[in-house]
């Protein structure tokens, strides 16, 4: 707080009052992620409250196929790790490695989505669809919102990979990669809770 202001006060002649825009963006994005935590909280609360309202239809616990879920979990976790490797490469100035690790992350993310879509389609075939009951709707909305976040992240990541190819590692692209890597880690954290509350508590 005061330090930031004081720092600028001492930096007379240095773009007085000019603040590092990347620092601002990272803080702003952090706040946005917190608002996203609240968003997921509401979806979690709705899922928990409505999870037993199955209206005589199929029950989630009977339809969960854990092998797929476990695969999704480790794929996403690994992609979170590889996004960290991408940031490491960036900090070492290695743009080609950065782009490669981002590509690996994106591929893993796409695999996650593919598995999740398959999971959903199978459930729908078994009569557990979005419109079946309050419980089923809550499941698909909660898990699906996470999947939507991942999908949008993939598009964003691809866009950044193009920008990196064109412009290399600059202050601006560095800032963008920091932001998206934060986003990606956040999505893995949300998945931890999805796994725990939806799937593990579902089959226990």
């Amino acid at each position: 707080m005061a330090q930031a202001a004081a720092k600028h006060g001492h930096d007379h002649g240095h773009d007085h009052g000019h603040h590092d825009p990347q620092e601002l963006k990272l803080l702003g994005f952090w706040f946005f992620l917190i608002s996203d935590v609240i968003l997921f909280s509401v979806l979690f609360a709705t899922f928990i409250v409505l999870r037993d309202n199955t209206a005589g239809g199929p029950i989630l616990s009977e339809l969960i196929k854990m092998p797929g879920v476990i695969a999704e979990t480790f794929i996403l976790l690994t992609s979170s790790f590889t996004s960290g490797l991408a940031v490491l490469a960036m900090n070492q100035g290695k743009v080609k490695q950065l782009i490669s690790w981002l590509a690996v992350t994106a591929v893993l993310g796409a695999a996650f989505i593919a598995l999740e879509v398959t999971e959903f389609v199978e459930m729908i075939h078994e009569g557990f669809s979005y419109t079946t009951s309050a419980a089923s709707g809550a499941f698909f909305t909660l898990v699906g919102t996470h999947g939507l976040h991942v999908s949008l992240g993939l598009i964003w990541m691809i866009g950044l990979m193009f920008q990196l190819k064109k412009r290399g590692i600059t202050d601006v692209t560095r800032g963008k990669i920091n932001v998206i890597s934060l986003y990606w880690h956040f999505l893995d954290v949300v998945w931890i809770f999805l796994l725990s509350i939806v799937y593990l508590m579902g089959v226990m």
Partner: protein
Amino acid sequence: MAEHNSHDSHAHEQHGSLKSYVIGFILSIVLTIIPLVVVLNDMMGRTGTMVVILVTAALQFVVQLFFFMHIRETGKPRWNVMALIFGLLIMMTIVIGSIWIMLNNVVAH
């Protein structure tokens, strides 16, 4: 100005070594496997299982915060930490508050 910025970004560079990411990755794997094993092998009663699930999830969250999201970084005061704590508090309020209130508002289902 360019000097100013790269000075800042040098400060940010300090965080994240390969070691910390690998440790974080391994810890996360372990903290994922534990609840999986407990649940899939029906090793504990209902309450015990729930505790294991929630505790390992919370721990993995903290691991990722420290090892992946570098929450120890950035100078004081730590706005992101404060916002996160408040956010978690509101999250608990929303979830626990809803569960509590809706206990008395159950519909036929």
